[in-house]
């Protein structure tokens, strides 16, 4: 392998991406596949809004509507929002701590391919007899009785992609614990690294309950176990508990990295040190901690009793405190700053009122008696879209603009970026603000249609118009991406001019070995410190230029994930009980997976070295950073 740029054919580039263990290329893979799933989930959202555009619409049948609604939620959470955030974590976090790569490059690739095959498996349900239709929460009382294989696609697909996410979580944790550059103490880590750290810890502890719950579901449907069959002694509430013990931390797995992204943006474009860095760090940790103690607020109406409801109501209200701390820190970061209104900054400023609105309605629902009124109404739909779209999606769009130059070496158009922002932002509020009132007027969530005499026509029509604005915003973003890629104007290390942290001290895109010499971190916002002191070299380095040890690429992760993909088809059709080929398919699939695991374990993989001469050539040629 050589760092010298060379023209490669399409096949070679494909093979490169299939075998890569480089965190920056894996980030591209996450962004591309997460982006495609985001478009699929967006199309599903548009179908929902078309169906609800007017009273008594028959655009979608009731059954199809259930499938579209379920797949919209599942796709957006598991296959769009999380992978796109993982893309930015992969692309940026190792650079922010000055690491050569993540701790386990091979597992990084495995995590991606497991997610990818899980997502493809789930979406193939559309073509193979129908998608899941019990909502993204897949409550057992609904799901057990669902006809066809939709639920099985959900259960097996999420199992595979869940393993991938768990692996990524462990990987990021170890990377941040072990691979920080000299001087990068915990309290000098950029906020995005901190939120990645806490979100990874949440992934580590929250995904196993989901996996267990989903396995119960599979066992019930496949082997005739009776976890959720009440007549056989089972209990469907177990699913609700396991799902929400996962599901509530999942919300924080999504929102904490979003907070991290906005923290970076506020500091960069206010040209100020983050106000209350320490408070922000501790608020992040507290949110992660409380995140595990509030799951039953999704279940107030189940009948857990007044004591349980009171405890979980209080815990839920407490979690609003650290979140409020963050909001004030951001406001005070902007206060007195020298603000530049770039596209990422517009998203960040738009995020604050949007997310506060979502937070306030969240506290309303924490009041258990009030929740009896709000539960399962459009008020809930409005609330969680304010949190997820107003928080996570705005962060994803902001990060796309902010980090595009670092990931691809060219800037997205600011003009089109602002168009996207205004269309999406207006569309978002137009769609979801009015849904609060629909909920208060009594419209239940997940209904496929409503009557003309119910008085919900106008508000639903307005909501659907808003969705068109959001779609237009996303289309302009796609145009922006295409136009930017065609123009391909290369940019330098610090294209925004005000970068503060280590990722802006390295070439855009960085060479495959990252920093030629590990930098020495001298404080919070370390690159800013060097800039202020007029350091011409960019950074101070912690080591002389030496040869670098790199991991080998590998095709094994693709094979390993593909084995589970194959086995899942066997397991799925085995439930029919009339097909002879299913058991062999399960065995072949698992043999592929465990065989490649054995191969990986037994074959020595010692990596390779980049020679000092090659690094010197890169540094002199301006392709790399390091002492000139």
């Amino acid at each position: 392998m050589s760092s010298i740029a060379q023209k490669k054919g399409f096949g070679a580039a494909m093979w490169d991406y299939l075998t890569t263990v480089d965190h920056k290329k894996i980030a591209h893979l996450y962004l591309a596949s997460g982006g495609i799933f985001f478009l699929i989930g967006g199309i599903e959202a548009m179908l929902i809004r078309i169906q609800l555009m007017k009273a008594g619409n028959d655009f979608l049948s009731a059954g199809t509507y259930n499938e579209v609604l379920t797949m919209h939620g599942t796709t957006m959470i598991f296959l769009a929002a999380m992978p796109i955030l993982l893309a930015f974590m992969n692309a940026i976090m190792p650079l922010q701590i000055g690491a050569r790569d993540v701790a386990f490059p091979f597992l990084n690739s495995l995590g991606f391919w497991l997610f990818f095959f899980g997502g493809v498996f789930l979406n193939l349900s559309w073509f193979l007899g129908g998608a899941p239709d019990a909502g993204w929460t897949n409550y057992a009382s609904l799901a057990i009785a669902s006809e066809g294989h939709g639920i099985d696609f959900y259960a097996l697909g999420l199992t595979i992609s869940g393993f991938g996410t768990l692996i990524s979580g462990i990987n990021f944790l170890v990377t941040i614990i072990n691979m920080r550059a000299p001087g990068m103490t915990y309290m000098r880590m950029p906020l995005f690294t901190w939120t990645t750290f806490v979100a990874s810890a949440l992934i580590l502890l929250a995904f196993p309950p989901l996996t267990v719950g989903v396995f119960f579901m599979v066992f019930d449907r496949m082997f005739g176990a009776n976890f959720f069959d009440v007549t056989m002694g089972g209990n469907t509430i177990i699913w609700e508990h396991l799902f929400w013990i996962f599901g509530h931390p999942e919300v924080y797995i999504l929102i904490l990295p979003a907070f991290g992204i906005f923290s970076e943006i506020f500091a960069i474009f206010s040209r100020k040190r983050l106000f209350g860095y320490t408070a922000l760090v501790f608020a992040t940790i507290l949110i992660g901690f409380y995140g595990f103690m509030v799951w039953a607020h999704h279940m107030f109406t189940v009948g857990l009793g007044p004591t349980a409801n009171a405890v979980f109501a209080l815990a839920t209200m407490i979690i609003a405190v650290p979140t409020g701390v963050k909001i004030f820190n951001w406001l005070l970061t902007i206060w007195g700053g020298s603000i530049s209104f770039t596209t990422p900054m517009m998203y960040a400023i738009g995020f604050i009122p949007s997310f506060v609105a979502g937070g306030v309605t969240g506290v309303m629902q924490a009041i258990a008696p009030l929740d009896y009124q709000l539960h399962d109404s459009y008020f809930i739909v409005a609330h969680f879209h304010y949190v997820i779209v107003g928080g996570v999606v705005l962060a994803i769009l902001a990060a796309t603009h902010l980090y595009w130059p670092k990931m691809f070496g060219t800037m997205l158009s600011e003009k089109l970026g602002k168009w996207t922002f205004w269309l999406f932002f207006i569309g978002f509020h137009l769609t979801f603000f009015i849904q609060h009132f629909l909920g208060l007027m009594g419209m239940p969530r997940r209904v496929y249609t409503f009557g003309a005499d119910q008085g919900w026509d106008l508000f639903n029509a307005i909501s659907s118009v808003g969705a068109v604005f959001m779609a237009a915003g996303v289309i302009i973003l796609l145009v922006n991406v295409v136009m930017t890629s065609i123009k391909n104007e290369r940019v330098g290390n610090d294209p925004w001019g005000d970068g503060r942290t280590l990722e802006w001290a390295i070439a855009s895109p960085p060479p495959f070995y990252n920093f030629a010499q590990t930098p020495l971190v001298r404080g919070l916002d370390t690159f800013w410190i060097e800039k202020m002191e007029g350091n011409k070299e960019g950074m101070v380095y912690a080591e002389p230029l030496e040869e670098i040890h790199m991991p080998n690429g590998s095709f094994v992760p693709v094979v390993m994930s593909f084995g589970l993909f194959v086995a899942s088809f066997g397991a799925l059709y085995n439930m029919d009980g009339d097909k002879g080929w299913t058991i062999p398919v399960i065995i072949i699939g698992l043999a592929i997976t465990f065989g490649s695991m054995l191969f990986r374990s037994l074959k020595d993989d010692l990596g390779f070295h980049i020679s000092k001469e090659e690094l010197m050539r890169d540094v002199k040629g301006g392709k790399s950073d390091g002492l000139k």
Partner: protein
Amino acid sequence: MDLNKKYTPQSWPDHPETATMEGKNKFIGFWLLLAAETVTFASLFATYLALKDKGPSGMEFAASNLFELPLVFAMTMILLTSSLTSVYAMYHMKNHNFKAMQAWLGITVLLGATFLGLEIYEFNHYVHLGFGYTHSAFSAAFYTLVGTHGAHVLFGLCWFIALMVRNSKRGLNMYNAPKFYLVSLYWHFIDVVWVFIFTVVYLMGVIG
């Protein structure tokens, strides 16, 4: 890393499992994986406790009349002993005594396989009594909890054997020492889970 570098007990580091960057990463990563495994088993235990003795109306099986302690006690002692023998193996690994390490790992594998054999016998016995997997919510929760542990034992045995066979000719080096260390860590974890199963499922079950 040079695989051909020869070590003596004198030049061998005190903690070969964390002497390299790769080793350090694996060490922390594996502890984190065990944290995830702990949550997995906690979910299974919680489900078991919720569904214990629950079944169709008129079910004759209950934990108090199903489980018999003598066999399970023997299994417990065998598995606990295998944990001890894996400690001996790691003791010799740290002293760079490859042959002794292999021997103790071999004993560990034999004990683990005996445990697994007894567990299969136990399950078979229950099934013959009519307490099959689909019998009730109780049976599903029981077999899933204990069976998941059994699957972990099986995976651990395969892992031990694969490492022992792969490295039988070339001895210990800095590349495979962390691998041996991790599998023994995994084995201890399995042991701890079994202690909880013995207490929560069998002892508390027999008490009623």
